[in-house]
């Protein structure tokens, strides 16, 4: 290992010329497993794979190898995108293209491996093949790059994900990693790096879309004794998992991105602010940082350049608001994570009063690529205003789900129909929820919009952090908005009254809209109507008067749903009906006299004794007493209960 380290440092990282010697290339090919005489089995390992059972698959494969194929090598790789295919197992036989298989749970391992090693491949679980030049093709098997899911993507940030062992720095270096970082700290000035990033037009991927190079320059031009770079890996929107997947699959590129970013602003300490619960990703990143330090890529006087850098991981202690820049700084300083008034912006006075740049994971992932290939290369993707690509985490009711990367300028329809392959079970499309709990909805009318910061801003839709939740007709928008409002209410830090009280009031009103009108007198009805009429006012006051982005954007899901699905809200309020049949409080239950056997199961379980009848005779429900809990519906064995 020590020899390899010395070799890689001397012949790759510190090698003066851009093209390496043929001898070095040979070694690197071996590290990349392109020239190997033994079969290699790759198993995806990330949180979503583990939830789907990848650890059990790993054990099954390793015991199979021990028994049958002692030559074979077993490698853990990151996720390469489609979560619904997890656990993904890919197998590379010597000299042949890699084959990808999906949903390989424990029990499928033996038949699969038996098949592959005896040239009898089970086509049911096959995704496709992929490989590089000089490899033998498999006849009649599609290339994964040609599948709809991958063909419409532009994988730049994610190009390493799922291809290499994220815990191996050797493999990352063999794939060209860290070379540009060493080049940057040895040859470039701070301003040059900032210039290149500014010329590339890279915009912050966390939602605001501020020019990254400009932000760095602001921090660099502020006179101070020290500066800080903070990588915001907080990502705590419900339903967003892009950053986590990136960190699990390609932690070294993030370390490189942070290191270049920190160099560009002259920071000697960088923090990574991690979300609570992503322990798996955090351990991977910690390992990556430790091994990078061991290679001399971090630490004191890095490769005799005179530059010092250390990266420190901090765990977020559990507050959604900490994703906001100033609140994040307060948390890092050991205070309550409450937002502060801006200006001064963090770039002039941030952490401990020093200039601080806060960048999101995806932004920093782009940095090594821009430095390596130049700003013109980066500008060749995407649109004029928004160059580059965007990573989304598709979840919800699409046929496909997982982490994808598309070129800016693609339409949402293309993502929905080509990449996500439409809606599960042939249901009707209703909306896309973009950007988590403070995002907006994209409906059938806005589906042809392009993914572009400026175009979306015009329509009042924020890009968000990468959450892309597909919603079908079976989802009740009022209930969904109530869910987001509940989340925001729980997470409001309590500093400003409009947000603290506003989210609470809005939640109360939304709950009254979906509650069963039992024993409702004129007074409570009036209160509800008054409340409903005030919803929009509360929302606009919150938007105008809250201090931070959380409060200002808390009413977004509501405003956007009301604009696009007004009739659904009106149905709930006036007709007291939920078209998706989700709001339990608005359902009315009745007993089918034909089917009821009079078993009394429902009557004994009814919490409000609303079901009457005689044993072995059909029962009936007193509608005025019913609270709509649905227990009778769940308990009836004869499906004699009807719901309307």
């Amino acid at each position: 290992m020590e020899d390899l380290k010395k070799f890689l440092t001397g012949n790759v990282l510190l090698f003066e010329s851009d093209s390496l010697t043929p001898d070095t290339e040979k070694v690197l090919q071996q590290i990349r497993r392109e020239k190997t005489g033994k079969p290699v089995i790759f198993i995806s390992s990330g949180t979503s794979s583990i939830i789907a059972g990848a650890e059990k698959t790993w054990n099954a494969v390793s015991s199979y190898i021990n028994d049958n194929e002692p030559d074979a090598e077993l490698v853990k790789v990151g996720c390469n995108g489609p979560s619904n295919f997890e656990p993904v197992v890919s197998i590379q036989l010597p000299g042949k293209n890699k084959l990808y298989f999906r949903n390989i749970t424990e029990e499928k391992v033996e038949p699969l491996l038996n098949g592959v090693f005896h040239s009898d491949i089970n086509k049911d679980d096959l995704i496709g093949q992929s490989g590089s030049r000089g490899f033998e093709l498999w006849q009649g098997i599609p290339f994964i790059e040609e599948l709809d899911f991958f063909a419409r993507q532009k994988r730049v940030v994610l190009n390493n994900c799922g291809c290499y062992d994220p815990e191996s720095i050797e493999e990352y270096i063999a794939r060209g990693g860290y070379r540009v970082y060493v080049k940057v700290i040895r040859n470039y000035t701070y301003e040059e790096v900032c210039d290149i990033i500014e010329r590339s037009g890279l915009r912050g991927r966390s939602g605001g879309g501020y020019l990254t190079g400009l932000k760095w320059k602001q921090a660099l031009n502020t006179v101070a004794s020290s500066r800080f770079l903070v990588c915001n890996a907080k990502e705590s929107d419900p339903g967003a998992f892009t950053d986590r997947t990136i960190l699990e699959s390609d932690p070294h590129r993030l370390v490189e991105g942070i290191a270049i970013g920190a160099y560009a602003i002259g920071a000697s300490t960088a923090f990574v602010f991690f979300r609570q619960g992503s322990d798996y990703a955090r351990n991977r990143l910690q390992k990556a940082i430790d091994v990078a330090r061991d290679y001399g890529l971090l630490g004191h006087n890095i490769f005799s350049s005179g530059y010092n850098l250390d990266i420190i991981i901090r765990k977020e202690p559990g507050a959604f608001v900490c994703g906001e820049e100033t609140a994040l700084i307060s948390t890092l300083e050991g205070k309550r994570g409450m937002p502060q008034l801006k200006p001064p912006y963090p770039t002039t006075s941030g952490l401990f009063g020093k200039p601080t740049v806060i960048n999101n994971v995806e932004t920093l992932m782009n940095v090594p690529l821009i430095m390596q290939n130049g700003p013109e290369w980066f500008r060749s993707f995407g649109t004029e205003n928004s160059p580059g690509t965007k990573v989304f985490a598709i979840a919800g009711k699409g046929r496909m789900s997982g982490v994808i990367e598309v070129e800016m300028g693609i339409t949402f329809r293309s993502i929905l129909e080509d990449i996500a392959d439409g809606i599960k079970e042939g249901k009707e499309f209703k909306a896309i929820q973009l950007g988590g709990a403070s995002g907006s909805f994209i409906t059938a009318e806005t589906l042809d919009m392009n993914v572009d910061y400026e175009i979306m801003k015009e329509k009042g839709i924020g890009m968000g952090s990468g959450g892309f939740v597909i919603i079908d007709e079976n989802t009740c928008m009022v209930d969904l908005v109530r869910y987001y409002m509940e989340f925001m209410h729980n997470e409001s830090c309590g500093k400003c009254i409009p947000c603290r009280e506003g989210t609470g009031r809005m939640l109360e009103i939304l709950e009254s809209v979906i509650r069963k009108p039992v024993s409702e007198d004129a007074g409570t009805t009036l209160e509800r109507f008054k409340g409903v009429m005030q919803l929009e006012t509360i929302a606009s006051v919150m938007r105008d008067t809250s201090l931070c982005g959380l409060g200002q954007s808390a009413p977004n899901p509501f405003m956007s749903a009301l604009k696009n699905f007004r009739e659904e809200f009106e149905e709930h309020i006036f007709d007291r009906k939920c078209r998706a049949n989700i709001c339990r409080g608005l359902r009315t239950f009745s007993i089918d006299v034909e089917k009821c056997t009079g078993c009394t199961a429902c009557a004994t379980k009814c919490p409000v004794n609303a079901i009457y009848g005689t044993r072995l005779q059909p029962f009936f429900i007193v509608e005025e007493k019913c609270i709509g809990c649905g227990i009778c519906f769940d308990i009836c064995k004869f499906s004699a209960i009807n719901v309307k």
Partner: protein
Amino acid sequence: MSTDVDLILKKYKPGKREDMIPLLQEIQDDNGYLSEDNIIKVGAFVGMSTTKIYGLATFYNQFRFIPAGKVQIKMCHGTSCFLNGSQAVINKIKEETGLNPGQTGRDGIFSYDIVTCMGGCNNGPVISVNGEYYPYVKPEQIPDLLKKLRFIIEND
């Protein structure tokens, strides 16, 4: 499993407020919760009044002040799990255990939290029990699962 707090304190420099949160996190990771004694010790070490530490720690929902249960249940309530029916599972857990999120039962067996997004968006609703994941959870599976877990703990 709980080591002495003094050993943890030794790793830090005294009097630095920015170390407060990592310090509390480390103590909690080690002991499972923040006891009154430990908070007083931390206060003396960092030079902050105990009330201020409580003020800080209660702001964040990670910190707990009573010992955690032997079985830690984490329920995912992210958007995707919500769309797939996590609310019904949450109601069932509440019904079966009588616990609200963030609470620990009196018998010290179960503690229960709601988290947003564990990453199993395609396998939702997801529940994690002491770090082990259960995908596609349905409300009717909850009583049996809890019974099984209780049985394991009580006979251990």
